[in-house]
């Protein structure tokens, strides 16, 4: 989902940057408040950022014969809510734009909006929905991470479609073209991200009951209470 440097017209680049900036600012505020009010969760916040750092560094081969990568932002959204992930995701994408020639500074706003805003919010919403439906935690975590990953890439397809509408079929036709590039490649990777997220969530349930309680996550979950 890294739109390469210069691949959004200036107006689009500026608009996406303006849209993403307030989310990142809110993420900074939220991270500061978390550190102040729940200092015991600081290390877990760092670990969630590290998870995104690790997963987004690994380009994985996919069934389509091309490669792409997981985003890793679903886990943090699940644990801390979506807003703090705007900051963590922006750090990951900033690192990649500056040092890895992956993405770019003019497209950073658009990329942050896709991976660090839409992805975490979708993941968070799906996790909430799964809980409301009474699904087991592992199922909720899996579905959240998977849909956050896919939503990120579909958003990128939308951003590209708005900037480059198809001369014949318009924005919608263009979106289908970009989504057709991303979605089939992304699907197995989203499944992998979901499974890895469940692995970490299971570990947390076993060993990090204190932090989970401090975050008031799944307060009714007996597995957390039993620890």
């Amino acid at each position, binding site marked *: 989902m890294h739109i390469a440097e210069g691949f959004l017209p200036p107006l689009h680049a500026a608009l996406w940057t303006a849209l993403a900036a307030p989310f990142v600012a809110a993420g900074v505020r939220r991270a500061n408040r978390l550190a102040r009010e729940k200092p015991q969760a600081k290390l877990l916040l760092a670990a969630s950022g590290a998870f995104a750092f690790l997963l987004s560094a690994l380009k994985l081969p*996919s069934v389509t014969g091309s490669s792409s990568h997981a985003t890793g932002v679903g886990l943090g959204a699940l644990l801390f809510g979506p807003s703090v992930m705007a900051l963590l995701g922006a750090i990951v994408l900033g690192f990649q734009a500056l040092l890895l020639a992956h993405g770019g500074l003019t497209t950073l706003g658009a990329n942050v909006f896709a991976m660090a805003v839409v992805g975490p919010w979708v993941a968070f919403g799906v996790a909430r929905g799964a809980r409301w439906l009474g699904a087991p935690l592992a199922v909720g975590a899996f579905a959240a991470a998977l849909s956050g990953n896919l939503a990120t890439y579909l958003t990128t397809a939308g951003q590209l479609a708005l900037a480059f509408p198809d001369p014949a079929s318009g924005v919608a036709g263009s979106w289908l073209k970009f989504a057709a590039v991303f979605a089939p490649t992304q699907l197995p990777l989203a499944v992998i991200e979901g499974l890895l997220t469940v692995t970490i969530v299971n570990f947390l349930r076993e060993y990090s009951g204190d932090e989970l309680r401090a975050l008031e996550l799944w307060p009714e979950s007996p597995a957390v209470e039993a620890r």
Partner: protein
Amino acid sequence: MKGRGVGWLVLALLVALGSALLGGLREGAQFAGSDVRAMAVVNAVQPDYRPWTGLLWQPPPEIASGLFALQAALGAGVLGYYLGFKRGQARRRRERADDGD
């Protein structure tokens, strides 16, 4: 619980392996990045579009792989530190509880 934790991880590895093998069977599979392919679609939809700005700095290929490794290492390092720390904490707590009996 412990067994189940490893089970999910193994399943993730199997999906990754299967996906890579199936992908490799495709004709001319080079595992090009989907980002790169999407930028090619930009050129197909609007052939006269030219990126209006380039990268500030691009690492030489040999260095880039090192920086990618650095990103993964930082992530895995911090994550591993956390996981090990929590496990040690839980064991200490259990041992202290045993001593108390």
